[in-house]
């Protein structure tokens, strides 16, 4: 760990004379301040403790009980709830599989789509600005509105998708009613919903690239792909890292979109971890639902950490 040179110098000056064996001597804090100053962060600490720390700790406690949510009686069951989730609950493992599949689909599609949009719409022409606004528009809608709009689009009888297909003589499908496809159609909705937001992140990155670099590359005879590879990508790589992390978390927690589009409870082919946890709470299994929530939290943390480790898109020094 590096120490700021200024801090080191200050410490050296105040800690003299040097002790004979520095390892054995406990360093005393040199700072003595008016205790009243420590009262200032207390409201913030209290809020964090009450609304964040306590509920989190309670969730951990519930997770090792069989509490049903309202009864006074409960038993401590150790890690049974965690074991049950992975070994005796195919609804949970199905939701987990669906969720991972959904995250993978959305992260790949949304990252690529928003990057392509950004590349096409970086220029500040009137048309580009209009199109940017158009693609950004879904972001300002509530997820419930988005769910209802797309539920209508996908409706096999009166929906827009099948109506359009019928005009060209094609019989449309059941979309959300087809268990093998349902998750893909919701992924399409999710990408439509959030790509505009990610496009803005990319546009900010692209607009920071000095034009001279492209001019120089063109003079050197670099083609468009070489320019992208050697100039554009290194500049937008940090943005990609943000986009991927944000999209991962967002896709894990697509609760409102799924419930809006698939109803409550969603059928098994559209059940993801957050909707499964909700169903478990509604089924009066608070202890088990708390354990599922902790697994969910760990899963997001792990996947986010993994993708940061694997992608390593932030150039060194940033």
């Amino acid at each position, binding site marked *: 760990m590096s120490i700021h040179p200024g801090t080191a110098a200050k410490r050296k000056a105040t800690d003299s004379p040097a002790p004979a064996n520095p390892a054995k001597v406990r360093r005393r804090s040199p700072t003595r301040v008016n205790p009243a100053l*420590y009262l200032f962060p207390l409201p913030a600490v209290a809020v964090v403790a009450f609304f964040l720390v306590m509920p989190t700790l309670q969730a951990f406690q519930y997770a090792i009980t069989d509490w049903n949510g309202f009864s006074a009686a409960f038993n401590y069951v150790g890690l049974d709830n965690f074991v049950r989730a992975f070994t005796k609950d195919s609804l949970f493992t199905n939701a987990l599989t669906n969720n991972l599949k959904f995250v993978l689909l959305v992260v790949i599609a949304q990252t690529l789509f928003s990057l392509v949009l950004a590349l096409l719409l970086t220029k500040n022409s009137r048309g580009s600005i209009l199109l940017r606004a158009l693609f950004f528009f879904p972001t300002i809608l509530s997820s419930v509105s988005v769910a209802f709009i797309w539920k209508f689009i996908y409706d096999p009888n009166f929906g827009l998708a099948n109506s359009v297909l019928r005009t060209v003589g094609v019989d449309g499908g059941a979309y959300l009613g087809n268990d093998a496809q349902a998750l893909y159609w919701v992924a399409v909705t999710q990408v439509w919903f959030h790509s505009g937001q990610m496009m803005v992140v990319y546009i900010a990155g692209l607009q920071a690239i000095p034009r001279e670099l492209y001019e120089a590359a063109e003079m050197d005879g670099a083609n468009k792909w070489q320019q992208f590879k050697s100039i554009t990508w290194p500049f937008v790589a940090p943005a990609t890292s943000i986009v991927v992390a944000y999209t991962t978390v967002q896709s894990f927690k697509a609760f409102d979109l799924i419930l809006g589009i698939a*109803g409550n409870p969603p059928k098994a082919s559209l059940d993801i971890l957050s909707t499964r946890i909700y169903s478990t709470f509604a089924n009066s299994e608070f202890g088990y639902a708390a354990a599922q929530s902790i697994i969910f939290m760990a899963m997001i943390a792990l996947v986010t950490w993994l993708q940061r480790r694997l992608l390593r898109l932030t150039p060194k020094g940033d």
Partner: protein
Amino acid sequence: MSQISRRQAVALLGALGFGAAAAACAGPGGSTKPAGASGPAAPSAGAVTGKVSFAHWRGEDKAVFDELIKRFAAKHDGVEVAQDISTSNDYNAQALQKLRGGSIGDAFATFRGAQFKNFTEAGIYTELKDSQAVKNYQKGLLSAGQSGDSQLGLPYQVVFPMPMANLDLFDKAGAEIAPKNWDAFLAMCEKLASAGLIPISWPGGDVGNGGQLFNCMIANNAPVDDMCAQIEQGKLKCTDDWFIKMLNQYKDLRPFVQPNATGTAVEPAQNLFSQGKAAMLATGSYHLAAVRGLGAKFPIDLVFPNTTSDGKGKYEGAYNATFILGVNSASKNQAAAAAWIDFLSEPENAGYYANQTAQHVAVDKVEYTNPDLKRLSPWLQKKTALAARFQFNNLDVRNAVEASATAVISGTSPEQAAAAAQKIVDERL
């Protein structure tokens, strides 16, 4: 004031954090007992004044209840009733937590089945056995609100979860409205299909409404009346012959439901029926007002898909007693809440509610003036089975078992669908 070191300050914050952690590790539920939810004592007597919160999920009935509230307030000086309406899904998931404090839902409604059971176990209900209200109900319809010897809730509505039929289309197609057995039912569907109609509009994409057909399909197939409770307990299995037979009958329905039925939500299904494109809507009489609202002008009756081969089934239909009214044991205004429930249970007021909302009620001596209710009233006298799907107390089990029927409609074999459902049941035994 003396100064403290940074270490002392950190120690102080640490102690606070430890205190918070210790507080967090108190028993789940904080005080461990819902405040004031003390179980089935009779609602306290007293003056009928003050504000009563009436919690329920039927937003579509708001205007009707508003009118009834006006009439109630005119009878009792200084009383006020406020409706606290949630969507049915939210109500199912959150009502218990909202009501246990007593500030919301002095009077309230619950769904039959798992929700009623949870409320009972949580001690939210008060005993209504000796109330004025209970005397107004048809005795045979009160069982859904009973727990042991106690009458905790009053099932206010009587609904028929059976397909509604457009009688004009049936006439035009020359189809039989009361098929005696399964073959006759399929022949009826065939006639409707031959007339260029969709025989059955079925909202397979909506778990709650799509599942209502299950009540009819299982009624005469199962060996016992508490078949769903026994499936949940592991005494009966989805892989049993009778259940597979029922799923095979669902398979028979494949050609008679609208294309892509498993992706159809309830509103489009209602539209197919209201617009005269489908001859039946496989939800229930609780959608009468909705389809009228969508412009349906034709006469409506109910059709029971009798699954027997010889027409000698135990039941001629299915019904449900729901919207179970109760008085909150944690309420601080129980006297007024009980008076409100008494008021709703008077035949005149129950009749107003029924005729305005197109819902039959369990209250006796009600005069039905609504033409739809009048036409469907004979069903109140028929031998109908109490809707079986509400016997499930575990919602995961219910959804899995009902999903087996949806899977069959979408093309899965009955055996495979049954095995998949049984796997979920086994995991929850």
